[in-house]
């Protein structure tokens, strides 16, 4: 076990733990935002740079600060390390810049995007971004394409976090889905229009932090905040069958994996559960899903937000988060 402090809060973690995971153990506001790291996908992280933190003291042995900000998702802790996240103005400033970079080519078409309301980029720019924009340049443009029968790709919205690539490589058929070209012309693509048809391809939708990969069976059906997320399960031969069912009255609008407080799926689910079972009778409903993450669908996350006086349709399942 090694001792570290993050924003002056001490914690003991196992050797080899990354700064981000140590911070997640503490929880709350000091957890750096992560747009590309996904604990269930080996090799992910290090790319988006939103999780950069300052290491004020490298370790007990070597008390020097690290010269540059480091990516907390891919830097292991050392004994005696002192990390500054929200207590460092440099980190906050840099994070603002990273959000700006992520947005300069983003279409900001939230009003017509299915992800709006549960989008990590929306949340990130709300909490860490600036109010104005400095770009007048044109943005990258790609036509929307189909990736297999269930998934729609809006490359315009993609932030190139590579999560879907890791899903494709690690839990579906290998190497049909990847990145073409480089720099700001990179695009996500499925090799020579090969469709992804694999029982687990739908998980790409859930790992995608933005609305670049969306569920074709749910597109344009409803805004997510009008739906009630319910924990549900069924007997499934391919996956655990434990999902979140998004309901309006007795109707199931869509099925997703269960997401934890960091926006990560607890378990990957199969396509049959996700796309094929939309009847109320297909599922045993366990009860309301508690949404604890920093998201519009848990509206009470934002303390300073003026809450509307009308009764919120999902009021009963909202919970105060730190």
């Amino acid at each position, binding site marked *: 076990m090694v001792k570290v402090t993050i924003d002056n809060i001490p914690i003991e973690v196992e050797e080899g733990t990354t700064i981000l995971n140590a911070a997640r153990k503490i929880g709350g506001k000091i957890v750096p935002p992560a747009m590309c790291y996904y604990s269930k996908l080996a090799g992910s992280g290090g790319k988006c740079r939103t999780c950069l933190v300052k290491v004020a003291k490298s370790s007990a042995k070597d008390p020097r600060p690290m010269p540059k900000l480091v*990516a907390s998702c891919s830097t292991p802790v050392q004994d005696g390390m002192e990390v500054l996240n929200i207590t460092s103005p440099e980190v906050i400033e840099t994070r603002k810049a990273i959000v700006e970079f992520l947005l300069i080519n983003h279409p900001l078409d939230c009003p017509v995007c299915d992800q709006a309301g549960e989008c990590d980029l929306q949340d990130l720019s709300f909490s860490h971004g600036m109010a104005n924009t400095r770009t007048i340049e044109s943005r990258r443009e790609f036509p929307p394409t189909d990736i297999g029968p269930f998934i729609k790709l809006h490359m315009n919205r993609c932030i190139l976090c590579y999560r879907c690539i890791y899903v494709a490589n690690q839990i579906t058929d290998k190497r049909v889905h990847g990145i073409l070209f480089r720099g700001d012309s990179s695009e996500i693509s499925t090799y020579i229009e090969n469709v992804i048809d694999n029982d687990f391809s739908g998980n790409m939708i859930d790992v995608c932090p933005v609305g670049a990969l969306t569920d074709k069976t749910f597109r344009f059906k409803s805004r997510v905040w009008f739906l009630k997320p319910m924990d549900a399960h069924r007997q499934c031969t391919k996956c655990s069958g434990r999902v979140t069912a998004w309901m309006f009255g007795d109707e199931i609008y869509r099925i997703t994996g269960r997401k934890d407080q960091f926006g990560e799926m607890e378990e990957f689910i199969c396509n049959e559960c996700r796309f094929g079972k939309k009847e109320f009778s297909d599922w045993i409903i366990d009860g309301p899903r508690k949404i604890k993450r920093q998201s519009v669908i848990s509206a009470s996350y934002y303390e300073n937000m003026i809450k509307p006086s009308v009764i919120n349709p999902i009021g009963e399942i909202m919970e105060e988060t730190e």
Partner: protein
Amino acid sequence: MGRKILLEKAGIPGIREFSIYRHHGGYGSAEKALIKMSPAEILQEVTRSGLRGRGGAGFPTGLKWSFLDRKCTNPRFLICNADESEPGTFKDRYLMEFLPHLVLEGLIISSFALGANTCYIYVRGEFKTLIGILQKAINEAYQQNFLGKNILGTGYSLDIFVHPGAGAYICGEETALLESLEGKRGNPRIKPPFPAYKGLYGCPTMVNNVETLAAIGPIIEMGGEAYASIGKGKSTGTKLISACGNINKPGVYEIDLGLPVEDFIYSKEFCGGIKDGKRLKAVVPGGSSVPILPAELILRTAGGQQRLMTYESLADGGFDSGSMLGSGGFIVYNEDACIVRNTWNFTRFYQHESCGQCSPCREGTGWMEKVLNRLEHGLGKMSDIDLLASIAGKIEGTTICPLGDAAAWPVSSAIRHFRQEFEFHAEHPEIVRKINHGALVKNQESNIQYR
């Protein structure tokens, strides 16, 4: 004539052939190293020589070699980084083209010293002719038992393979190079782990520049101490400088480190002064990635000392008034050069070459390119200048690999030293459009394609 260590034999007719190279004393150091010396002794000589990496970073080679994981039982690899693609740098190409056996000799000694039995030359894909030259030299060395099994009866075996890249600058970055060599997309890896521990196929790997490795032969021949006696302070030995731009004699020159910059630009032996008797305006001393310096700061430091061709002297003054020796791509500009256009050109390069993994570099280089493009074509505003400086500042130090920094430095240094030129572009769009590049403006106004 200055002293030549690397290029000593470059003028001999037919030196590309094994027999002629051997006749002129070639492979003497390889024999000496493999038969008479132990790997530890070679490492000691290299450390003593003070040789520093010629690929750009200038890290001491002996120290770097000592980091190689020697406890791991996996095979070790030596990789010769011949991906030379930095604008302004063309020295490795010269070495491989004219002295392929000198490079091979360095590879053999270094592989032996590091305990590697396989060595790859990762050569830039565009260097098509060099691939043939290198392969021919390798075949000859195999025939003469300087490569292959049981070299010279010492029991040591080594194979060298030439691997052409596919045209990406980023594959010169050592971890992207390893990915590419493994047959993957050339994205830099996240460090740590460093290649010395987990490199090619997860095995301990050493990546060195062509010029670094080529210097190993002469160092073994003359001894580390003799090599270290050349140069100045911690910048020992000789360095190849590829000079280009508005000078009378562009080309590759071998200089003793410590030569005054002024001598290098104006002496007949080297650049031969500025072309057509014009005045010197600026110099990029170490390849496109390093900060540009105006004439007064390249000849003298801010403190008034004479600027020398050493790692330390060129960096004197930090980024406020200094630059870097980098890879030795020396680009000279005369009074007619447009710094804005030049900066735009460099930025276009980085925008095109960014691998696109990390957001600051992927988005930032594209953004800077678009803003510079506007300024250069008379469509910019005064506020764009601060915007550019701010974008460059945000890319710097936040990326996975140094390409982000390399893209940011030319922009921030150009604005620091030549702000009035950027202001002129913003203030006088009509003039800029008229003199400069009418055709492009038309293009820009209609619809410029960024992909």
